[in-house]
């Protein structure tokens, strides 16, 4: 049915494009809101933002409905030939990634036979992320209407920023601007997910980073916020540096950055990255295993070229590592995790949207999207990075003292889980956890925001306590989030999908199952299972510690406690929506709608177990192996999580030790964790200070080397000129003056001949004539 395929292709494109551009339109309107058609007291900007993102959500849902579903859940490795969707100009060619639609908006540049363009690439991963982003962003927008209500004023007093005289800074409110930034962020995030090639991903990657900069630095009067914003962008740029290198490798060696294979209007096929690298499945290595053979699309009748293009295996690995470096920066993975905790300086809705659910997950998205481009060795790196990150994040979260800090480290840790899952071959598990995590982590952050709002921006854990009496709804919402992230539930070892549990349980279960399957095949890498298992326990401890410290126990600060009051409905409704999704989004586990939708986008080669032996042998588990490990892994992680929860409830609920006793138990370990494993100090010492020193040197070189050279040269010139002047004065001028003087003297002498005696003159005349006559006669030739 080519016609329907074509129409649905166009419909999906137009819907998603509209969903993508709607927030941009809102942004432009909002930037000029105050000047043009509103004032600082108006809600219009916020409502416009809500309308725009709501519209995007509806459009995304429609796109899901129109997405060609024939290729849906019945995915197998060999079905890549029958859902090519054709439109007038482009064709998403069947390749390693089935069920993808792709096309081009316009060309950015064309060099020889290579082209860079603005395109789009839609598969179920794109769609799920569109819906998830739209949903969470809508909730956050609505929540922000309540959270930032105090910005709707001409005179906002910021208690955290001080002018020179120690008075709180007073400024005009920036309600409209906040929503403008949020809209811009949504636009960038949609663009990132929709992007049809790696350069476009990179562009929107930077743009979301920029939006995050704007949002972290929203309270721009606070030095800490501005510093955090700068740090976020700079640390991210370190990762992006790697990303750019990866792009350069692929661009140079493969010759395209396009994901999908495209056919242009002249019928010329340009093979996309995925097809070129993976063909229809596994990497094809050259005979000596030193390079990867690229699969270029052949026209009908073309003979295969005798030497097919290849890319050196080391370069291929380098490209993968570059892309992963970008992910590490954006997803706050070890060793670039340090920016995310600082990013909590931004308003809480931002933390919920940007710094937990969507933008930071972009790194995971990138790894998932570029999965076919990653060599097994790179995936191993991804797995270890994930493992390291989840452990570091979880341990720091144990001692963090502020509400949002705990959640930030929890985010880092959970992102580590996703990376780990992707690294061990659990593609579905990784993106599944990405989706569920988005729901429950934004729920947690918004709940935290509700607490912060109720307690007038008090978020230190030792000043809170017992708040469940004052904030019952918030407490319930946060408990749901806590249970979800902890993975608490009643497992069903025989049919794990039908356990009675929250979303986090299912997705984490899948992650652990993938890890266990991987470790069974590669016993050398056992850590990759043990670390996340331990992490699950630690997660339970810190999350329950958080909930108990905030909502249970005696109020630490009576003043805060008594002034706390439950947030308005505009804040609570988004919590309810997110809570609903946190509970139900993954019901059914492997057979849930969400998971089955996601795995249709899974690269074909993941489904079956595979062994690669380019550098050292790594065996990745297939679906079957993972499924087999599910029961055991689920049971173990459940036990560990319950143990962790139990410990937390014992220590922080029943409080057998006083806080001071706890602090004194492992003072040095505690300090190490409070210093966040001393990464910041290390980077300051190893990178920031040296760079600043070198930069000062650079100016110093200008001032002390280059300029003095120039000055020396000019001084030499002046010296030379001095010599020249002396020569002038002595020789040239001397000669001229000498001749003048001599002439003068001669004249003086000759003057005596002028006696005035007329007859004497005549005599001279006569004599001269005679003499002349004589001379002429004598000189006469012959």
């Amino acid at each position, binding site marked *: 049915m080519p016609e329907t395929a074509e129409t649905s292709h166009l419909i999906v494109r137009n819907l998603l494009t509209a969903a993508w551009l709607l927030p941009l339109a809102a942004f432009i309107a909002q930037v000029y809101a105050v000047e043009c058609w509103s004032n600082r007291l108006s809600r219009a900007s916020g409502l416009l933002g809500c309308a725009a993102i709501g519209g995007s959500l509806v459009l995304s849902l429609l796109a899901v409905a129109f997405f060609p579903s024939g290729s849906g859940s019945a995915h197998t490795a060999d079905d890549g030939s029958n859902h090519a969707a054709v439109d007038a100009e482009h064709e998403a060619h069947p390749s390693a990634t089935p069920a993808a639609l792709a096309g081009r908006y316009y060309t950015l540049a064309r060099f020889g036979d290579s082209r860079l363009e603005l395109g789009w690439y839609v598969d179920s991963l794109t769609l799920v992320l569109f819906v998830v982003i739209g949903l969470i962003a809508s909730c956050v927008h609505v929540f922000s209407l309540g959270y930032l209500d105090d910005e709707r004023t001409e005179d906002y007093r910021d208690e955290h920023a001080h002018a020179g005289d120690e008075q709180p800074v007073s*400024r005009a409110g920036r309600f409209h601007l906040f929503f403008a930034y949020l809209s811009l962020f949504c636009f960038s995030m949609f663009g990132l997910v929709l992007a049809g090639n790696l350069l476009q991903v990179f562009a*929107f990657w930077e743009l979301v980073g920029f939006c995050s900069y704007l949002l972290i630095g929203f309270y*721009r009067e606070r030095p800490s916020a501005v510093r955090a914003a700068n740090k976020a962008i700079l640390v991210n740029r370190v990762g992006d540096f790697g990303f750019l290198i990866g792009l350069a490798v692929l661009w140079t060696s493969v010759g395209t950055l396009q994901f999908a294979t495209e056919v242009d209007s002249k019928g010329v096929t340009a093979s996309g990255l995925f097809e070129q690298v993976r063909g229809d499945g596994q990497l094809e290595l050259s005979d000596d295993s030193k390079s990867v053979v690229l699969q270029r699309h052949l026209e009908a009748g073309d003979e295969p070229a005798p030497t097919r293009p290849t890319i050196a295996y080391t370069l291929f690995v380098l490209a993968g590592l570059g892309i992963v470096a970008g992910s590490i920066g954006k997803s706050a993975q070890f060793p670039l995790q340090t920016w995310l905790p600082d990013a909590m300086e931004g308003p809480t809705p931002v933390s919920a949207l940007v710094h937990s659910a969507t933008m930071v997950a972009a790194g995971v998205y990138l790894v998932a999207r570029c999965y076919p481009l990653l060599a097994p060795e790179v995936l191993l790196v991804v797995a270890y990075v994930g493992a390291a990150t989840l452990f570091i994040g979880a341990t720091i979260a144990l001692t963090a003292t502020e509400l949002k800090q705990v959640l930030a480290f929890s985010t880092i840790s959970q992102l580590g889980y996703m990376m780990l899952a992707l690294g061990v071959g659990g593609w579905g598990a990784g993106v599944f956890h990405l989706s569920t995590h988005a729901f429950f982590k934004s729920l947690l952050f918004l709940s935290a925001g509700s607490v912060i709002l109720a307690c007038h921006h008090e978020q230190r854990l030792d000043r809170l306590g017992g708040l469940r009496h004052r904030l019952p709804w918030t407490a319930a919402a946060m408990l749901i989030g806590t249970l979800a992230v902890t993975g608490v539930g009643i497992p069903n070892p025989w049919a794990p999908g039908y356990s009675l549990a929250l979303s986090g349980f299912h997705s984490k279960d899948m992650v652990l199952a993938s890890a266990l399957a991987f470790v069974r095949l590669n016993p050398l890498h056992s850590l990759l299972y043990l670390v996340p298992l331990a992490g699950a326990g630690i997660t339970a401890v810190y999350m329950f510690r958080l909930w108990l410290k905030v909502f249970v126990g005696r109020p630490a600060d009576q003043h805060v406690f008594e002034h706390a009051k439950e947030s308005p409905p505009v804040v609570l409704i988004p919590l309810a929506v997110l809570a609903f999704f946190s509970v139900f989004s993954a019901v059914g586990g492997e057979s849930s709608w969400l998971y089955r939708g996601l795995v249709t986008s899974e690269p074909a080669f993941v489904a079956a177990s595979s062994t690669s032996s380019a550098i050292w042998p790594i065996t990745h588990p297939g679906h079957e192996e993972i499924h087999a490990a599910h029961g055991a892994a689920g049971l173990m992680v459940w036990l560990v999580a319950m143990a962790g929860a139990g410990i937390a409830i014992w220590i922080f609920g029943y409080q057998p030790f006083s806080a001071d006793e706890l602090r004194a138990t492992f003072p040095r370990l505690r300090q190490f964790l409070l210093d966040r494993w001393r990464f910041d100090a290390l980077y300051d010492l190893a990178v920031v200070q040296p760079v600043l020193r070198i930069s000062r040197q650079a100016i110093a070189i200008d001032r002390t080397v280059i300029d003095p050279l120039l000055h020396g040269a000019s001084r030499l010139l002046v010296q030379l000129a001095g010599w020249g002047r002396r020569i002038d004065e002595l020789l040239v001028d001397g000669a001229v003056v000498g001749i003048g003087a001599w002439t003068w003297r001669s004249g003086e002498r000759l003057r005596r001949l002028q006696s005035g005696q007329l007859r004497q003159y005549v005599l001279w005349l006569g004599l001269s004539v005679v003499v002349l006559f004589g001379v002429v006669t004598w000189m006469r030739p012959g």
Partner: protein
Amino acid sequence: MQNFDLLLLTAIIFLPATWAVPLLFFPKSAVEAMRWWTLAGTAITFGLTLVLWGKVDFSSPDMQLVVAVPWIEPWNIAYRLGVDGISLPLIVLTSGVCLLSMLASWSVDKQVKGYLILFLLLETGILGVFLALDFFLFFIFWEVMLLPMYFLIGVWGGPRREYAAIKFFLYTFVGSVLMLVAMLMLYFEGGYTFDLMRLAAIGEGRIDGLQFSRSFQIVTFWLLAIGFAIKLPVAPLHTWLPDAHVEAPTPISMILAGVLLKLGGYGFLRIALPICPYGTQAAAWALVGFGVFSILYGGLAALAQTDFKRLVAYSSVSHMGFVLIGLGCWKISEQTGMGVGLKHWEMGLHAALFQMIAHGITSTGMFFMVGVLYDRVHHRDLNRFGGIANRMPEYAGLAAVLFFAGLGLPALCGFIGEVFAILAVWNYSPLAAVLSALGMILAAAYVLWTVQRVYLGSEYHGPLAENLTALLPRERFVAYVLSILAIVFGVLPNLLLSRMQPPLHQLVIRMDEAYRGLHQVLASIGQAGGG
């Protein structure tokens, strides 16, 4: 048609200078009238360049609207003009930047008449350089441009203006002298002609029996390259730039950064590369090497500045490094002399030219934005700003657009040039690509730190806080135009790239052929010697 072309091109070049003549007869007190008069002149020139834009057929790789009128016949010098897709964007950029900086010239109060006359002469000189197709004419305009600039810095500049002006003059003059030597060498070696197109044809081996020898090309290329590199500028020949920028009045800084630096890059593309393909290839490593050095050095030096203008000046050094690596990333195979991945070099050339335009927009904008602040509070010490975003929100927003364009934020014009250059240079040298990508981190660092110190924060620390008033309509116009251009070219780079493509593609093809020809000669000599 020929006559009309001649008239149009001549009008574009000489209209500003002619326009300056009536200025002599304005009474000294009619300052406002003189400004409007000059503004009208620059606006008409800009309009004429747009007419030119409309007349050029961008799909053709060849020089268009070529006119040649004999001038000094005994020496075979002609008044030869023409445009193509390489020069035209720069011409429109020039007239546009001149128009905008004329709008920014309202802040100049001292000896307005002299200033405006020199300003117009400067515009004539620059446009002449971009339009000239005769090396002699090119050189004349090159020098014509130098003098007004010298006086504009030396008379209307800041406290150390004499030092800066002389430094600027000396540096550029050294470059000119080297160029003059190269020019005369080419004149005699190329059969007594100054015709750039003929010289290029000889250099590219397209004329039977006449070809510059390899050693000749290498020497000539270095002479030309040093001259153009000073203008670009390339570290370590850059130290005139910070001083000149810091001391020059705002509109002159805008022209200096926006247009004058591009003359160096244009010189490479129009003269050094096509005339000396072999020399280019022999010096490619140096172009890329010094380009990378400039990127890193400029970025590091910018990071440590406390003077706002000096910071922007060093950022220019860094940005122009990308131009140089784009120009130089021509990889060949040592055995056969064949180009390896020529399409990447073509991309590099595109990136270089695009970066020139983009930098013309962003650096003009950045200097203008610094000038707006300087006009109000009369200092440029980065540590004594802060909180400007709250006092002048619209200004801060527009400044952010331009500064982030300089940082290389996607969807703004700085991104395209820099990223394309890095992608292109990997083919030539992965190390160079890695190092220049580091330059983008440095760019982020110094831009962000500047934005933090100037625009963010709780309050303004410096003097004259009461002067921090909203933008005037004139200033707003300039800022919006530049910001919108930055966005347009960032989102639709193909507007420019597709127009540059035919001539650049042809250049790549021809240079590759020329190099191969010479390389084969070399190889056969080598074989003969070995045999």
